[in-house]
């Protein structure tokens, strides 16, 4: 635990940073208010702020032993771990992890309860939503390998498969479709989740495939259903369930072929978009990062966006196109929806099939006039 005396500057900073939400106030007869408020940051209750009057008779070096916070639950609960900050006018208790919404906390000074504070439940108006699910197209190959879920807010990251189900023909909830990876594959912000459809079932030979069969059957209709019991990190639940229907098409057993891609080129002297059409949907995340545009002198600054249900990339340069030669450079790790990359098929028997190539990049030269 840390006990610090911090300058008025820090105090002002904390006051600016924190918009205090006054929960309770008790006034003594000398007009010095005894207040306790909640410290908030990014919708998380990160501390309790006490006016110093609560501790006027507590020596500075005894504050940590005098003040304790206990979650109110059945039985006698231990003091919550946290840091104690003594500022000029206030005392701040910051727990190691933010207080939990909906829970009630007992505040004790020298072992005596002086107040209790309930952290208010999340505002349902700020509830998270599923913004999109990838692939976005309605027809997917029979050997679809990945699904990405994009949320509007950082979500709780543990056990995502509790909240995601695949429903067959709007009737049957299918078990064991997604691979239960630990840790789950979230982006750093906790807003993008990668789900693998069990490769042991997608591949044609493994025991899970032989025993249970592939997860998706050609010409059948499936619904990806996200339950609204999924909590965001701030304790709010999904605003509404999310569903996406798709039809399963044929198996995709062909690697993406750069020679078949087409480019729609802009004119020199403009900032018009260069469009690359792949003629089939690619993996959303890999496509976003594996395609690069370069001039003969090096990189070009600009913005890449995906379109056409991940079958097209658009590049708009920061400055006007100059006449000359350019390269589209694509990393060989670019994958289609079945996980086939530019060098190899995902489901291959390497005793029979060799890598098509060991290249790290594929380059397509083009000219702007």
């Amino acid at each position, binding site marked *: 635990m840390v006990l610090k005396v911090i300058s008025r500057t820090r105090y002002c900073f904390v006051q600016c940073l924190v918009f205090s939400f006054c929960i309770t106030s008790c006034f003594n007869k000398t007009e010095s208010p005894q207040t306790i408020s909640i410290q908030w940051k990014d919708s998380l209750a990160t501390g309790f702020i006490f006016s110093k009057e609560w501790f006027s008779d507590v020596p500075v070096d005894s504050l940590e032993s005098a003040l304790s916070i206990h979650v109110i639950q059945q039985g006698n609960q231990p003091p919550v771990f946290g840091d104690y900050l003594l500022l000029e006018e206030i005392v701040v208790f910051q727990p190691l992890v933010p207080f939990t919404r909906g829970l009630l906390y007992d505040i004790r000074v020298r072992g005596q309860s002086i107040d209790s504070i309930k952290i208010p439940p999340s505002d349902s108006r700020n509830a998270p939503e599923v913004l999109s699910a990838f692939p976005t197209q309605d027809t997917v190959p029979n050997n679809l390998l990945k699904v990405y879920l994009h949320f509007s807010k950082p979500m709780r990251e543990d056990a995502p498969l509790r909240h995601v189900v695949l429903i067959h023909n709007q009737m049957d909830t299918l078990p064991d479709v997604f691979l239960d990876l630990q840790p789950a594959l979230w982006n750093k912000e906790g807003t993008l989740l990668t789900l693998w459809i069990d490769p042991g079932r997608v591949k044609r030979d493994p025991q899970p495939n032989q025993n249970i069969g592939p997860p998706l059957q050609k010409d059948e209709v499936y619904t990806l259903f996200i339950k609204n019991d999924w909590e965001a990190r701030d304790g709010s639940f999904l605003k509404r369930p999310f569903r996406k229907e798709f039809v399963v098409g044929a198996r995709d057993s062909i690697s993406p072929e750069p020679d078949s891609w087409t480019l729609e080129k802009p004119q020199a002297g403009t900032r018009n978009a260069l469009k690359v059409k792949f003629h089939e949907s690619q993996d959303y995340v*890999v496509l976003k990062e594996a395609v690069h545009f370069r001039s003969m002198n090096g990189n070009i600054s600009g913005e890449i966006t995906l379109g056409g249900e991940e079958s097209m990339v658009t590049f708009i340069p920061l400055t006007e196109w100059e006449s000359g030669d350019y390269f589209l450079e694509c990393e060989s790790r670019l994958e289609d929806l079945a996980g086939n990359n530019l060098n190899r098929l995902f489901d291959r028997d390497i005793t029979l099939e060799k890598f098509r190539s060991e290249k790290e990049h594929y380059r397509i030269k083009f000219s702007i006039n």
Partner: protein
Amino acid sequence: MYYSIAAAIIAGVFLISATLRDKNPNGFENGTPDIQSINGLAFGPNGILFIGDSKNASVFAIDTQDKTMVDKGQAVDLKNIDQKIASLLGTEAKNINILDLAVNPVSKKIYCAVQSQDGKPVLLTIVGDKIQPVNLKNIAFSRVSINYAPADDAKDQRGRPLRVWAISDLVFSDGSVMVSGISNQEFSSVFRKIPFPFTNAQEQASLEIFHAARGRYETNSPIKTLTTAELNGKKYLVESYTCTPLVLFPMDELKAGKHVKGRTVAEFGAGNSPIDLLSFKKGDDSFLIMANSSCPVMRVKYKSIENYEGSLTDPIRESYATAGVDFVSLPVVNVQQMDILDEANILVLQRKVNGDLDLYTTPSERWF
């Protein structure tokens, strides 16, 4: 005179830098490490704790200052450990996850990585029935990134990179941290061997296994857990993958850029995932212990592995059948984490039949 002053200054600078080096022999800096997640823990020498941080795609080394040698660890019997930790964190058990446990081999103190609902990681120590937070502010630490180098146009042509490197396990052995992980993009396992103290050098070998249950070679199964062992006088990396093949890789072959084929010595059956691996020495025998998602804890004698010269190559056609070295299933199920407390005791985190999550130590003789 000016020359004398200059010489004195230069000598002073050398003296100061030498002193700093002495104070930070592991290349540590003092400060507060920006640890975003704790997905794996492993102890190195002298109380140095390695922390696998998936969010940062990094491994941190921190000096715990926990260096007092103890021969025997303190026994632990904490029922509903998740509830106890949750109360100390001011929340409920459903809002926390215990992600890893590691015992400091010097002090025999238990270190416990917890993640709260809001994603914040917490590091705790457990001694007997006392649970305490580990101070991670103003400490000596170093950090190494395990991510791919971002494309040099990453900032120009697209937003923030989306690649994540989820760390599945890490171990320290022979002066190096070995880390396995899974990318959120390509379906691939990634392995790094990182010498400590950290420098810019790290070796990324690609590992290939034969998955007998699958009847074909494959390179891209996710490594779930790993440990190290000495077999016939040679050091090996021992890994287990999803669907439970057990694979050996000679440590001296794990070099940068090298493609290493592992020797599959056992298949413990499809439909199961390994959770944790331990190597334990008892008398003249040493054992591999494996906790599983759908099977009991398994015990394998390293001598059996030493005597198993071959590699499994024939496909297993019988459902959920096993193959390779002999193993014993222990009457212990739903073990989520385990580590060696001391020479005579094992630390176990187990979900009991009644749903309780208990942390306890058990005499190793019960398992051997």
